[in-house]
């Protein structure tokens, strides 16, 4: 298919602001009379507040007001309250906010606040709460259960409650030692398909391995600062979300106002990575404080606070039994994940299990899991939640089975990889389409696997070469959102989008699908976004790699609606039926006589005159209220194209394969990534440079997950060790390969109008898996059972000091 815009590079309109400093993030907005708020956070990992005395703080010169939990609606645990009181469940949890004319005065005031706490026992290792008699992170229990309870008024979370789940000490001991805890323990989540034991019986190479992955902090460079002010009952909120209009209703709910009274401005977002998908609790503090003191408030979140409240990946402690049949087919997989959800949020075991079911297409599989809370920072989705940490854990275990059987790691992956008939999860759900086996083969050729694998184990002085291959996956598509555009009487195409600007330029890439359908030159298009007062549609969330699929669909239906209206207007004015007309060159013309035409400007003018659905005075009933309000506001200003996208069917699989060669210094545990090549099966590439960014950025994230990034808590006092960026070990320029390569299958997804899927998450999974495999390969197939694999672990392994560190299967402690 030949496109004018799809598949072509372009300059996103917001990029100039990013290179000039003109781009404004939440922290960059000022407002007359604005005051500055700072947070008081909990010094304890668990407890409750007995009393607060802030009289001295409030009396200080320059202090303007204070907000405590009493000023806010109370969600039920495990919904994370904006300000804690009765249930403090992690160190760093916000307790109150104080506003002053400067941040410094606000901090001085914090020093004057006296709080009396009551301590409760706490837990930082999930197994310490799972064991009989172990402390519970919440007063009510340690695990999440789903129920049908609605959210408390003014809060966003619903359908969850806290329950208790415990294992006998023997089972915990077995699991800590890396074994199946036995048949008699309770689970929170269990599923199985196929004949597990029968399939294992047919396997000729079976491995059983424990694994631990930790909860890296998101640490977006822009923290979750917000600024808010109120005018005549309306709240103007400058925030930092990955998504935009999908956040309006929940944010309005947190502020206790009708969504029509919220103006949400979010032009730029300095990274989210899953930590800013939807409105988060601290936004309520900013908004309520501004209302309470009737002043514009900027609540800046510091780096340390961003660690506390900015979320982290869920941790996993798991066990995997995997069997290969004599022909290389994966026969059976048995998998356990004890997920660490921190304080609130959910663990990622189910996503991890779905990942394994898809990547290996086993004949039989069982998953057993428990999602546990700990008194550590709340967890949230992070770039391929479940999938990417599981990719890291799975790859060296799979390699071990392959090595044991004497197969080739790439051939086994190709053989078991899903094609379009592949299925996912316990329901064995269908895929929209998959060409992943070809992707792996394409990657192997790009990397020159057949030759490069010969380098495995090659010594060069103190250095040894390792090669690895890894696979990444995330579902990458949703549907059912609204598309909205407007052809102005000036002839320009105004592409309204409620997609957030999280740094992928997807907001711009997807609206080009509408311009493509309407055959409008990109120079005559203007993207309208970033400020809900500009009348934006209800768009999908910017997470789950779904925007490239989902929002191409919405833009397509909106554009098709506009085309229909253009043709109808032309038929009305020029006579005949709509289907006698076509569009091109920003004109709608009679096919049989192209000189009979209306320009888009003329058609838009006619739409205004004709009214009705043409100019948005009427609109489909199935639109989301956000979109409806926007159409109402735009009515009469041009030709409106608006529609709700129908539903798609099946899982939209975005998959990647990565190949890595490393040179590891056995004396220092340090390694150089000599080469990294990756290939994606993510449909049509609609923005090549954006695709390149995703693949390379995901590669850096992969190096971080598998090699560097840490989450460390002290088990004695619940204190986190790595609240700052330097301790979090986020990869730098000098920790990643100098040059990387990538490619794509470019087979269109059947259910996207232009065939596109996102790839932001799988791009990490293949890299971390490839690195974990390469390190293992360099060390003769040693399985570390933990990610990240840090220099000290490698040194210990080489020195055969395995009784230190590497045998220690605990989350949150390395």
């Amino acid at each position, binding site marked *: 298919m030949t496109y004018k815009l799809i598949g072509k590079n372009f300059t996103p309109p917001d990029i100039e602001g990013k290179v000039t400093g003109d781009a404004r993030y939440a922290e960059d907005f000022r407002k007359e009379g604005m005051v500055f708020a700072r947070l008081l956070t909990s010094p304890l990992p668990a407890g409750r507040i007995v009393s607060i005395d802030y009289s001295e703080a409030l009396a200080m010169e320059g202090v303007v007001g204070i907000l405590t939990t009493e000023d806010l609606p109370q969600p039920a645990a495990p919904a994370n309250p904006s300000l804690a009181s009765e249930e403090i469940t992690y160190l760093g949890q916000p307790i109150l906010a104080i506003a002053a004319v400067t941040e410094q005065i606000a901090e001085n005031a914090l020093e004057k606040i006296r709080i009396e706490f009551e301590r409760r026992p706490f837990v930082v290792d999930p197994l310490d709460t799972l064991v009989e008699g172990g402390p519970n992170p919440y007063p009510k229990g340690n695990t999440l259960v789903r129920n049908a309870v609605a959210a408390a008024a003014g809060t966003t979370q619903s359908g969850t409650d806290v329950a208790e789940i415990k294992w006998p000490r023997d089972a915990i001991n077995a699991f800590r030692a890396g074994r199946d805890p036995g048949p008699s323990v309770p689970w929170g989540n269990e599923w199985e398909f196929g004949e597990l034991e029968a399939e294992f019986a047919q396997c000729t190479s079976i491995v059983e391995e424990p694994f631990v992955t930790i909860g890296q902090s998101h640490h977006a460079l822009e923290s979750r600062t917000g600024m808010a002010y109120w005018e005549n009952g309306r709240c103007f909120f400058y925030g930092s979300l990955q998504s935009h209009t999908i956040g309006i209703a929940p944010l309005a709910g947190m502020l206790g106002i009708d969504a029509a009274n919220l103006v949400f401005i979010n032009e730029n977002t300095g990274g989210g990575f899953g930590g800013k998908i939807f409105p988060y609790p601290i936004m309520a503090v900013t908004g309520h404080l501004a209302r309470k003191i009737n002043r514009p408030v900027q609540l800046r979140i510091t780096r340390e606070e961003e660690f506390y409240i900015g979320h982290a990946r869920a941790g996993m402690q798991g066990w995997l039994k995997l069997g290969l049949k004599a022909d290389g087919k994966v026969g059976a997989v048995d998998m356990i994940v004890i997920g660490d959800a921190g304080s609130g949020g959910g663990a990622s075991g189910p996503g991890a299990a779905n990942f394994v079911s898809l990547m290996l297409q086993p004949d039989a599989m069982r998953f057993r899991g428990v999602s546990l809370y700990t008194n550590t920072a709340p967890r949230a989705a992070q770039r391929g939640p479940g999938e990417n940490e599981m990719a890291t854990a799975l790859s060296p275990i799979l390699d071990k089975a392959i090595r044991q059987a004497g197969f080739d790691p790439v051939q086994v992956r190709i053989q078991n990889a899903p094609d379009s008939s592949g299925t996912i999860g316990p329901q064995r759900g269908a895929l929209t389409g998959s060409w992943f086996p070809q992707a792996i083969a394409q990657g192997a050729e790009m990397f020159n696997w057949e030759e490069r694998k010969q380098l495995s184990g090659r010594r060069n002085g103190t250095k040894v070469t390792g090669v690895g291959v890894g696979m990444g996956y995330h579902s990458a598509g949703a549907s059912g959102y609204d598309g909205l555009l407007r052809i102005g009487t000036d002839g320009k195409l105004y592409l309204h989008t409620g997609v957030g600007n999280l740094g992928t330029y997807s907001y711009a890439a997807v609206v080009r699908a509408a311009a493509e359908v309407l055959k409008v030159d990109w120079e005559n298009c203007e993207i309208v976004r970033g400020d809900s007062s500009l009348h934006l549609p209800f768009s999908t969330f910017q997470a789950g790699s779904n925007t490239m699929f989902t929002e191409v669909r919405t833009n397509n239906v909106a554009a098709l609606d506009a085309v229909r209206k253009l043709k109808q207007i032309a038929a009305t004015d020029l006579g005949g039926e709509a289907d006698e007309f076509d569009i091109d060159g920003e004109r709608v013309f009679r096919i049989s006589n192209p000189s009979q035409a209306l320009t888009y400007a003329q058609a838009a003018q006619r739409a205004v005159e004709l009214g009705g659905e043409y100019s948005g005075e009427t609109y489909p009933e199935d639109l989301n209220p956000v979109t409806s309000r926007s159409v109402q506001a735009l009515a009469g200003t041009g030709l409106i194209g608006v529609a709700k996208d129908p539903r798609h069917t099946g899982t939209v699989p975005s998959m990647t394969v990565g190949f890595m060669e490393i040179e590891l210094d056995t004396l220092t545990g340090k390694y150089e990534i000599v080469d990294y090549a990756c290939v994606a099966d993510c449909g049509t590439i609609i923005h090549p440079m954006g695709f390149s960014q995703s693949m390379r950025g995901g590669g850096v994230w992969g190096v971080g997950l598998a090699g560097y990034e840490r989450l460390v808590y002290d088990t004695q006092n619940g204190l986190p060790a790595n609240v700052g*960026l330097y301790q979090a070990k986020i990869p730098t320029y000098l920790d990643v390969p100098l040059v990387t390569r990538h490619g794509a299958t470019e087979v269109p997804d059947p259910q996207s109008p232009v065939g596109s899927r996102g790839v932001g998450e799988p791009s990490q999974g293949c890299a971390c898996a490839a690195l974990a495999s390469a390190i293992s390969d360099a060390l003769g197939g040693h399985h570390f059972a933990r990610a990240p694999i840090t220099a000290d672990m490698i040194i210990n392994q080489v020195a055969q000091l395995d009784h230190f560190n590497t045998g220690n299967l605990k989350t949150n402690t390395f």
Partner: protein
Amino acid sequence: MNPRLTRRRFIKSVIFSGAALSSGAGFYLASAQSRQAGAVERLVSLNINGRTRRVDVMPQETLAHTLRYKLGLTGTKIGCNRGECGSCTVTIDDVTHYSCSTLTHSVKGKEVVTIEGLRSESGALHPVQQAFIDELSPQCGFCTPGQIMSTVALLKTNPRPTREEARQALSGNLCRCGAYDHYLNGVMRASGQLS
């Protein structure tokens, strides 16, 4: 005793009101304490982006704070405020510094350039800015001003760096999005080594 009642006792019904302390740079002056004997003069002249700016600076104030909150130069970002990310990088006499870890009083008499100071008099983009656009270097953009300032400083002393030299020079700028490749492409393009 009911803890909620205990807490309520302390809630004040009258909120401190400070109309004179309200907005703009003014509130810093208004809230300033009188100058202590022997300490530095607070009202200083700074050379920022080629212009002399008179500004009231607290003794302990960091340059990042002055730029963002006194001078309205919000292109300089605070990513960590601890010298651990590089988002606040500016040049001082053509050398890169973390402005979050620089005392404003220490740059008196020096030339400070921020991201806002790179455009030419006519408003044209600096070649590094244009190159970073052409290579789609930024992702979320939050670290971009710092990356650009490090690149500008590098190219002044080394107009045609190798990719390895470039990554060494930019290594004090963290990018959480992982856009390192694209930034290095931008450096190579800005130095005329990519077309």
